[in-house]
């Protein structure tokens, strides 16, 4: 290709990577100019982290070329990437918390004389280095005595001092408060002014519009868009991140269940400081409530609060007309709640156990160790649910880790169905399973609803959620911002709410 008048700082062409036959990255191009702050956006599974890992040599790419300053590079490890000039600072600060700030800045390259570290010289250099970032702290005390924001700046200072030309910041703001974010932004602007190219991964749209020059959006491993921030309105951006082709899916909507039915559980002013702002929520039998919003907006957090996996610090819960406390999943289960988490692999299935053992797990937990289910009962329950949910292969004695994603998800559902819950909470029920299985899971959700179960479903698949939800709660920045019912439940309305709220908050 013909280079423009200026050679870009970093140019990726046709990056591809697949894991076990699934395309995590599919021919992605990415261009970073020097002095540019470039947002890399996308929902979970869009390919952001795979792109970063292939760029920095953590995983090998299947195809694609990478040029830094017009020179072809192919780092095979983070060490090589750093040497080439590409440094990454992760959300989890990767420094030694027990060492002093100065040691962290110069670890492995401390100034020495006769083999001994020149402590005072090192501290002097550390102070000089941090002064460039307007940071005046005691560099002799352990890093862990400082806040996460300062640890981030120390990590950035180290990376930049190691002659970084490209700095990748992977969700650096996720654990920072507003004041800390402004400090970090000042540092980013200053580095950009020095000609360093910054790749900024975040899911806070306000921050993107506050600081980024350019935005690249990934979706399902493909490049969805790349444009200057000024040319990309929020509505457009949200649509690119969430929607596929935006068609009216409302035709498929079922007739809503009678809304007057008595609520099974009512949450009032329920919330936790710094986690999810207080919200009101009513769950009714035969009624599906959907939770929609961008990644990090509080979908999963709401689900966890409702299940008691995270302890709320405000509000009250009424279940079946009685005031109850909800401090642990055990209490929630006793009240008839069930929860299928998003992180199926880490929070849901026990991969080494068989399908049968996974299915009876929750039921057994509710009965307690003193009343074990007999093997016959276990076989009966597992067999019935495997038939009901059409889990394939229908072998209850196969370790669940060997099943496909969709069937693992069904087995998880079976686990909760075995407890005959009154309320079932599903977090991203269709995440990471193949397209055919999507439809089956959705059918299942509808069937459960028709049987009179109350459902709360969190999903990033807007087109799917509008087909089964009777009511949709839209979340943004960890708060419930709108409740849509009836005709209002549609993809465009949801998108409008997410984008409109975002615009207002600036």
């Amino acid at each position, binding site marked *: 290709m013909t280079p423009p008048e200026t050679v870009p700082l970093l140019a990726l062409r046709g990056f591809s990577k697949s894991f076990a036959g699934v395309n995590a990255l599919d021919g992605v191009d990415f261009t970073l100019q020097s002095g540019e702050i470039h947002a890399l956006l996308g929902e979970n599974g869009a390919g952001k982290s795979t792109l970063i890992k292939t760029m920095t040599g953590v995983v090998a790419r299947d195809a694609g070329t990478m040029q830094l300053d017009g020179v072809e590079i192919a780092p095979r490890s983070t060490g090589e990437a750093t040497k080439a000039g590409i440094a990454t600072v992760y959300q989890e600060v*990767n420094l*030694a*918390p027990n060492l002093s700030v100065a040691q962290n800045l110069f*670890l492995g390259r401390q100034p020495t004389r006769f083999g001994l*570290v020149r402590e005072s010289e090192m501290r002097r250099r550390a102070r000089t280095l941090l002064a460039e970032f307007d940071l005046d702290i005691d560099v002799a005390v352990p890093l862990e005595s400082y806040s*996460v924001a*300062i640890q981030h700046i120390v990590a950035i200072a180290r990376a930049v001092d190691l002659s970084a030309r490209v700095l990748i910041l992977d969700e650096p703001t996720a654990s920072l*408060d507003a004041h800390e974010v402004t400090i970090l932004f000042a540092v980013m602007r200053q580095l950009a002014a020095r000609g360093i190219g910054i790749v900024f991964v975040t899911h806070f749209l306000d921050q993107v519009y506050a600081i980024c020059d350019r935005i690249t959006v990934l979706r399902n491993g493909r490049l969805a868009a790349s444009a200057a921030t000024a040319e990309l309105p929020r509505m457009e951006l949200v649509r690119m991140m969430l929607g596929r082709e935006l068609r009216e899916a409302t035709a498929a909507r079922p007739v809503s269940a009678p809304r007057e039915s008595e609520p099974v559980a009512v949450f009032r002013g329920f919330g936790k400081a710094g986690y999810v702002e207080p919200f009101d929520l009513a769950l009714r039998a035969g009624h599906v409530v959907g939770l929609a919003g961008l990644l990090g907006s509080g979908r999963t957090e709401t689900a966890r609060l409702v299940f008691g996996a995270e302890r709320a610090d405000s509000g009250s819960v009424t279940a079946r007309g009685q005031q109850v406390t909800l401090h642990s999943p055990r209490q929630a289960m006793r009240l008839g709640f069930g929860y299928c988490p998003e992180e199926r692999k880490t929070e849901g299935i026990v991969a080494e156990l068989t399908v049968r053992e996974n299915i009876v797990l929750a039921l057994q937990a509710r009965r307690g160790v003193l009343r074990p289910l007999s093997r016959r009962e276990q076989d009966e329950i597992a067999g019935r649910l495997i038939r009901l949910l059409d889990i394939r292969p229908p072998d209850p004695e196969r370790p669940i880790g060997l099943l496909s994603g969709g069937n693992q998800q069904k087995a998880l559902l079976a686990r909760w169905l075995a407890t005959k819950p009154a309320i079932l909470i599903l977090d991203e029920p269709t995440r990471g399973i193949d397209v055919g299985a999507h439809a089956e899971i959705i059918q299942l959700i509808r069937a459960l609803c028709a049987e009179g179960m109350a459902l709360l479903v969190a999903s990033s698949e807007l087109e799917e959620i509008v087909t089964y939800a009777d009511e949709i709660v839209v979340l943004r920045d960890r708060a419930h911002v709108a409740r849509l019912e009836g005709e209002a439940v549609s993809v465009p309305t949801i998108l409008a709410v997410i984008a409109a709220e975002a615009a207002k908050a600036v």
Partner: protein
Amino acid sequence: MNRFMPVLATTVVFGVGFAICSLIYPNFASPRVVMNLLTDNAFLGIVAVGMTFVIISGGIDLSVGSVIGFTTVFLALAIERAGMPPLTAFVVVLLLCALFGALMGAAIQYFELPAFIVTLAGMFLARGASFLLSTESIPITAPFYGELAEHALLLPGGFRLTVPAMIMLAVVALCAVLLHFTRFGANVYALGGSRSAAALMGIEVGRTTVLIYTLSSVLAGISGIVFSLYTSSGYSLSAVGVELDAIGAAVIGGTLLSGGHGFIFGTFIGVLIQGLIQTYISFDGMLSSWWAKIATGLLLFCFIALQQLMLLVARRRRPRASGAGAR
């Protein structure tokens, strides 16, 4: 200052303990007792220093006691049966120890095995090897040994600094410099702080791990030499359980078992406290020597509780109200 608190506490405990002993037994605070404290615990001090490196890096070395035992048997056989000059025997046994430690470090690093298991295997291996060499106690009669054991530096005030004590003090001083003032030392701390972060920061994790275990085994070898000087013999059952005394000394001295925190000086004081308890019991004459173990156990509990408490307080006090110090 927080970081120095455990060491400070240990030092105060030792000072107070010594004062109490001196009040009870008038001739306790004498040059002879003080110097014996150093001589009698020289071998423990040397291994405990090596253990401190290992624990700070986030590992553990259970093999050191067996390595001491092996060293004494090897020396006795080499000098008495094979007629090897003692200095040559020292060099050979230290090379063997270095190789042994390097192999354990390599196994931990490259097969990604827990240090506990690898050094446990090393412990059985070294002890077994010393039994293979000889099962009886072999006296070492070489004249050089007698001279070394007799030799002592007379200091003003009637202090007799024996060879074992000299070796221990030298090891403590050199290793303190190595741990606290070199790049290698910083890497040891970094490994204990976060292994993955250390790797991401470009530390050669593998090389550092191998070096740490090599150092620990070589120090155990030196400790074995000192032990054989002290007892003038080699016996395959010597120094059983010393690895646990060494861990105890390091922890009493303020080294965190989870890695990342600790000082050589603290370990040195930890050894002296254990020695002080022994000396008290021998002065008393009536108490069973097992009381030393009980007292050490209680002290360990107290120090671990103190450390946890301080960690808790430190976490509470962490400045969440950020920007502290940012202009």
